[in-house]
Every structure is written in C-alpha cells, then in structure tokens.
C-alpha cells in the first residue's frame, strides 16, 4: 500500500502543526502535558486526516467514526487536530485552560468534535466499548470507534475490564491505540509499574494485536488499514504504537520532567524553532512571545 506523496506531506505537516499548537496552547494556557501530546502527534494526524470518517461541518453526523481520548491529559494534541480538521477556528485553541474555555482535560460541552469528557485515566476504553456496542445496536457495520490509551494508563484495572468485555462482545469495530511512549508521569513504565509483555496481555484478553512505530506515518496508515479492514474477524484490535514521549524536542524526549510542565515563553520559542528544524519546516517561534501575560501564573505545571 503506497501512500501518495501529497498525502504523506499533508500528514507530516499536520503532525508538525499538532506539536506546534500543543506548545502554543500549553505555554499560553500555563499548564499542560507536552510529552504525551507530542508522542501521539502522528497517530492523531493519521486518524483525523486519513482514517476516520468525520464531518467537521456536521460533528453529530450519525455515521461518523468516533475517537475517545482516554489519556485525556493529551488534550492539547487533540484540540489541535480538531482545529486543523476544521471543527473550529484555530484561534479557539488559545482558550485552553482559560476559565470557560477549553478544559485542561477534556470537556465535550466546551469543544466541538470531542466525543467524550475525561481526566481520570483508565476510563475511556469502557466508554469506547459502549459506543462500539451502540454502533452494533444501530446496525452500522462501517463505523469504527478508536480509543487512545497511555502506556502507564494500562496499569488501571478498568482498562482490563473494558478489554475483557470488548472481546466478549466480539467488538471488531473497536480499535484501541496504546501510545507506548515508555514514560508515565514520574518515570519509566518499567520502573514504576511494568506492563510487559504488553502484546501478550492484550492477546490473552482476546484482542488482535498490531505493533507499529507510532511516528512512522506510512506504517501507521498500514496498521490502521489492517485494523479496520483486514483483522476484524470477531475480535477487537489494538494498535500498540511504539512512540517517544516528548518526540520532536530533544530535552523533552523520554523525559518525565516534561510529562506535565508549561514552558515559559522563551523556552516555548526555542522549542518551536527546534521543532521546525527537526521536521524541516521554516523556522518559526512562539506566536505570543512579547505579548503581555494575560493569565495569572500559578505554578509551572504538575
């Protein structure tokens, strides 16, 4: 399966812009999770610009695919993806973490295109199971429900309750994605609470497993193609996407200190320039640099 060059370029650009916007939002919002936003930039780009059937003009379109962001602290990346996909004007993302604006975690009442609200980890896959069952009840064989989970999040028992039930119900219209970035909030997954052998766990819970480089766009496209069209044979599918937490900015990569931390404007500016260089785009700094600080600065993050 060959991806046309223009498509590949588009997806690369979207992934880059998701990272950019995440930095902008988190800096301007003075709170947020850079590491886990960066690690799923390609995943969201591929899903929203290639795989998922959604209609930004009609977010409630009955036959749309759905995505539940279970690791809801990755909201900046998702807000960026939805903006880029046209669900709302780009400027809206700067309301992130503002009173009455886009929530720090996810609040569907605030953000068009969001399919769920969240914050506590481990709960999204159950919601996705409910949606997948809903599609079954409504005789919608084309629709798919996607659910993005963190790797640390897989410590949560609720994930395994949901996993067990998805297999029990033969939900082959459900595709989970584990953003396996190897790092949780305060350290490496293997140090804090090891989840390996992760693929074995999902298999033992009755899922088809695909492992993929989560930053390799053609590989992701291929993985989701298989997950959507080839593997659905009575089992749900999990795409274990091996990623790098903080991918794109060296100091943030695999570094739990950037799990949750809002950069100051100068740091944001450097990060954005580094991103541009890394991904081969014209150098561009922090758009709000020099703007007066409108928001009360409480703490750096966490």
């Amino acid at each position, binding site marked *: 399966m060959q991806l046309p060059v223009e498509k590949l370029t588009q997806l690369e650009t979207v992934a880059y812009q998701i990272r950019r916007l995440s930095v902008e939002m988190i800096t301007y919002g003075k709170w947020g999770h850079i590491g886990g936003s960066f690690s799923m930039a390609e995943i969201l780009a591929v899903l929203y610009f290639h795989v998922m059937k959604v209609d930004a003009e009609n977010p409630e379109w009955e036959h749309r695919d759905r995505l*539940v962001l279970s690791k809801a602290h990755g909201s900046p990346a998702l807000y960026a993806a939805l903006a880029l996909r046209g669900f709302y004007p780009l400027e809206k993302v700067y309301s992130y973490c503002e009173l009455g604006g886009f929530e720090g975690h996810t*609040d*569907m*009442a605030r953000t068009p295109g969001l*399919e*769920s*609200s*969240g*914050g*506590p980890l481990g*709960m*999204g*896959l*159950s*919601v*996705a*199971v*409910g*949606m*997948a*069952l*809903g*599609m079954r*009840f*409504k005789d919608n064989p084309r629709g798919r429900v996607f659910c993005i989970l963190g790797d640390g999040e897989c410590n949560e*028992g*609720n994930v395994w*309750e*949901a996993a*067990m*039930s998805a297999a*029990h119900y033969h939900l082959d219209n459900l595709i989970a994605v584990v953003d396996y970035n190897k790092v949780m909030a305060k350290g490496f997954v293997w140090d804090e609470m090891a989840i390996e052998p992760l693929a074995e766990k999902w298999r033992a819970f009755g899922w088809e497993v695909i492992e993929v480089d989560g930053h390799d766009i053609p590989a992701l496209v291929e993985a989701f193609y298989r997950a959507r069209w080839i593997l659905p044979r009575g089992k749900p599918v999990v795409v274990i996407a091996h990623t790098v937490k903080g991918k794109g900015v060296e100091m943030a990569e695999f570094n739990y200190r950037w799990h949750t931390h809002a950069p100051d404007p100068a740091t944001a500016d450097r990060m954005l320039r580094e991103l541009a260089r890394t991904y081969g785009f014209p150098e561009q700094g922090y758009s709000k640099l020099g703007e007066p600080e409108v928001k009360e600065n409480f703490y750096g993050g966490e």
Partner: protein
Amino acid sequence: MNGAAIEMRDAFGQTLVELGAQYPNMIVLDADLHTSSKATMFKKAYPERFLQVGIAEQNLFGISAGLALSGFLPFPSTFAAFASRRALDQIAISICFPNLNVKIPGSYVGLPTSRAGASHNCIEDIAIMRALPNMRVADPADAADLRAIMHAAAEVRGPVYFRIARLAMPPIFGPDHRFEWGKGVLLREGRDVTLFGTGIMTTFCLKAADLLAHEGIRAEVVHLGSIKPIDRELIASSAARTGCAVTAENATINGGFGAAVLEVLSEECPVPVRRIGVRDRWADSGGIKELFTHHHMQPEDIAEAARKVISQKKGVQV
C-alpha cells in the same frame, strides 16, 4: 391508603419493562445481579436490549456512558454499594460531568439487605450521590412512588440515581401517583412537629405520627422522594408552621438526606431538628426488624426524637 405490601424490587422490574415499551432506545445493563435486583424481568421482555457485563462495575458505568453518547437510554443496574463506591469515578466523570442521560438504580440500600452485612448494606450512597454536580437523587416510599420516579427519571435529561430497598412496602400512594423533581408530598398535616421522611422511612414516619397522636402530639408528615433537587418551599413552610422537625432516612445521618433538609432549614427557617438514620457505624448482618431496632430507626425512635425537638423548641431542657 391501605393494601398489601409490594416488593420494591418487583415494582422495579415491572417498571423497567413498562419503560422498555415506551423507550425503544432503553438498555438495561447488569453486573451479574439481575435476579437479585429483578432486572431479570427486563431481560425476559427485551433480551436484545439487555446487556450483561459481568462482575465489573467500573466497566458497567463506562459502557453506559458510551451508550448514552450514542443516543441510548441506559439503566446500569447493580447494588447501591457497588454503584456508589466501586464505580464512583466513572459515574462522576464519565457520566455526571458531561451530564449524560444515564439512569442509575441502586439496589439493596440501607438496612434491609437480607443478611449480607456491612459491605452490602449501603448507607453512604445518598451523601455520595448528592455531592455530584448534575446528579438527581430520589428515594421512593412505596412501589407507586418508585414507578413514578422511574418514569420521571426517563423523562428528564441527565443522570439520575434512585434507590430500591429490598423490602415489601405497604402502599402510601395510589396507582395514579405522579412524581415531580423537587416536589415533596404533604402526607399528613400537623402543627407540633414535622417528620420529613424519604424512601422507606416515610412509612416509619407515618407510624411514628400515629404513635404521637396517641399522646396528643400532632405530627405533620412530609415525604421527600426527590432528595436532589429538594422541595425548599415545602420544607421551609412546614417547619415554619411546626417549629421543629425530625428527618428519617434509610442511610447514614452524615451528609445525606437529613443534611439536605438542614441545608434548606438553616437558610430558610432554622429550627431544632434530629436526624434518624444509621449513626455513623457499619451495619451488620441480622434480621430486618432486629436491625432497625438495633440502629434506633424504628417508629418509636422517630417519635422519641420528635418529643425531644418539641421540648427543645419550647425551651424545655432535654
């Protein structure tokens, strides 16, 4: 009214079936307890709209959120203890926060739970559910009330929690009884004290009023099936008339129904109040009557509390 006692669980099962006919998008979910809760009746009537999730309450409520987000009307059914304690984060954030249309029956509330003991006698659920924004909370007095509450739950948009005691209750209300959110019912007029009851304790309040009547004490009895929202006007006006009150609930007296009444009275009409309910201790295994006596929740205890608040309002030393 007088009549044979009706099992609340049966009324629950029957009303589920009734609602199933009315709401084609209704789905009943169960966590391995349907013959206990009587959700079985719905399973039999609409097997294709009954979903078994096994012993996994967190998943039960998460799935319900997903179904509600897909336009369904889920009734995730389990014991009150497991709804309010085991899956609270899911109920709070997956359901209440986005204000989803999920109706949560809590079975086996308070003391009458067969002999299962502390872990199953759920006494905290009123306090817990009341603390969640967007959540409505109701506790029916009898079968007709439960039926009316379930209809009102289906009619209103948003999350609802309602309680089902494992007990047969004598009818208070007739078959045409209607329930309104935020509306209480004045069951008996009186001038000396108001007995505010919710759930099965309203029957106990009526009995207490009879006991008090023998002594010439005229107790007003108000049933507040709708705990959240609560009937501020009725609470305030009744207390203003009688000058003192007793609350009675089949749950802990910490932060629950009694507190909800106090929250109104303290702003509208501060009067002496005593609360009848489980006094901040774990409930035990045991016979139903035994337990109500042991926990000082019999009509006699309500009457005694009434005497105390009456003497308090008169400034007599208690």
